């Protein structure tokens, strides 16, 4: 078997007394797209930040292309990061720069392209996310969905072989959610990249994912193809799929359900 592109081994991370991840194991093969589901605050972002080397694991490790991220020197780390495109939850665009400068940022710093080629590549990337002609706008002038997509364009500028999406659809309307889902599928098919997508949106999760994982109380519950995942009898998974407040998913019991007639007991 080939070496997985990304391998998360026994990864644990706590902030003070609060354990966020405990012994998470995941591996992503070349060209595969993994979807990670999980409730708010279940440590999904922390997982991605560990993969990018923005956080240091307490125990365990993350390996990208077989090399352990937190043991790299800073130069090696930057080299690895050039192979990874990270799309932040809030886009994290540079707000003092235009859309063009945002997307061109990595190209200007890390490639030896001439300004003309940079321009071509930026247009190509913006076209891929459906945002032609927005080059001269500032991030403040964009809507939430456009910001996310500019973030995608910035992440793919250097043609990375891995893409990480942190909740790309959260906070968007259903139509834009579908647009983003398609953009991700397009990117996956056109670039043939390996992806990890974090999402709450089950519809796009089942469209995008070759395999689906659920993070629950710091542990990784299942890592399965969509069909098997849907059929998984685990009550936590079933509750998450139904989107029901009652069940083992929450630590604190939810408020009782009301019907038009009053509280149902």
């Amino acid at each position: 078997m080939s070496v997985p592109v990304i391998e998360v081994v026994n990864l644990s991370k706590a902030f003070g007394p609060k354990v966020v991840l405990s012994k998470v194991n995941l591996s992503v093969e070349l060209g595969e797209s993994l979807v990670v589901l999980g409730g708010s605050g279940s440590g999904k972002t922390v997982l991605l930040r560990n993969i990018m080397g923005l956080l240091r694991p307490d125990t365990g490790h993350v390996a990208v292309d077989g090399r352990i991220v937190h043991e790299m020197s800073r130069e090696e780390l930057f080299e690895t990061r050039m192979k990874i495109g990270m799309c932040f939850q809030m886009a994290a665009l540079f707000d003092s720069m235009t859309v063009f400068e945002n997307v061109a940022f990595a190209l200007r710093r890390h490639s030896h392209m001439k300004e003309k080629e940079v321009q071509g590549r930026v247009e190509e990337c913006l076209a891929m996310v459906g945002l032609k002609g927005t080059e001269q706008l500032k991030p403040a002038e964009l809507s939430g969905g456009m910001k996310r997509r500019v973030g995608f364009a910035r992440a793919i500028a250097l043609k990375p072989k891995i893409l990480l999406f942190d909740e790309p659809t959260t906070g968007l309307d259903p139509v834009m959610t579908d647009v983003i889902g398609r953009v991700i599928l397009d990117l996956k098919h056109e670039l043939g990249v390996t992806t990890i997508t974090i999402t709450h949106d089950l519809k796009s999760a089942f469209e995008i994912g070759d395999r689906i994982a659920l993070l629950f109380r710091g542990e990784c519950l299942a890592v399965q193809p969509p069909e098997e995942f849907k059929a998984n009898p685990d009550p936590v998974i079933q509750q998450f799929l139904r989107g029901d407040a009652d069940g083992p998913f929450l630590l604190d019991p939810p408020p009782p359900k009301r019907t038009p007639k009053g509280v149902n007991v």
Partner: protein
Amino acid sequence: MLTPLLERTGATVLAVMEEAGDFAVLSGRTIGSIFRRPFDGANLLHQFQAVGVNSIPVVVLTSLAVSMVFAVQLSFGFKQFQAEGLASQVEGLAVVRELAPVITGLMMSGRVGSAMAAELGTMQVTEQIDALECLATDPIHYLFVPRLLAALVMLPLLTAIAVYIGYWGGYLLLVTTQGQSSVVYSAEFYKLVELRDLRIALTKGLVFGAIIALVGCWKGYRTRGGAEGVGNAPTSSVVTSSLWILVSDFFLTKLLLV
């Protein structure tokens, strides 16, 4: 009774040492990255503009105001023992040695250092600094270095401007309102001042520039906790850098004057 007090004192001392260590490490990394590639000229030019050119009006106005009020006090003071002539000499000494560099440093820590802390702080809490990291760009190299270079170049220049304006501030007061002869004033202003003093003033500008940029960037980079954190970063940067400007001014004066 005594132990909790000791414990708290100990914890405070440890926290302060930790902060100082963090500042030292980041400053070292900044200085170590100055000559690293890639070189971003546009970014550097932007900082020269923000730190230097845009600060000229503030420096001109404060230097004018301070040198004039100082001239008023000197002329009043020396009049008490009929030595008005000395006012312009002492004015020259005070402006070149202390007023110009220190006032410029303090004003710049308010104008430039706080802006750096606010900008980097906002970038930190909106994950733009993480985005830089993910785009394989060292934030120290990309953000700290141009700001440090701009402050190192611009603070001595602004100090020189402040000296020049200080001369005219004294002139305005002593010549136009106190009736000193302009020829005497221009000869007397530089009488006690040596070339060495100008060099000291520029050295102070250089050191204050380093303090302002490094403290401002450090406070911004270490911002935590949303809007409140961003609100505290500039305040804390101005207080810290002003304090260090005044402390280092004392030691620089003692060291460089012997």
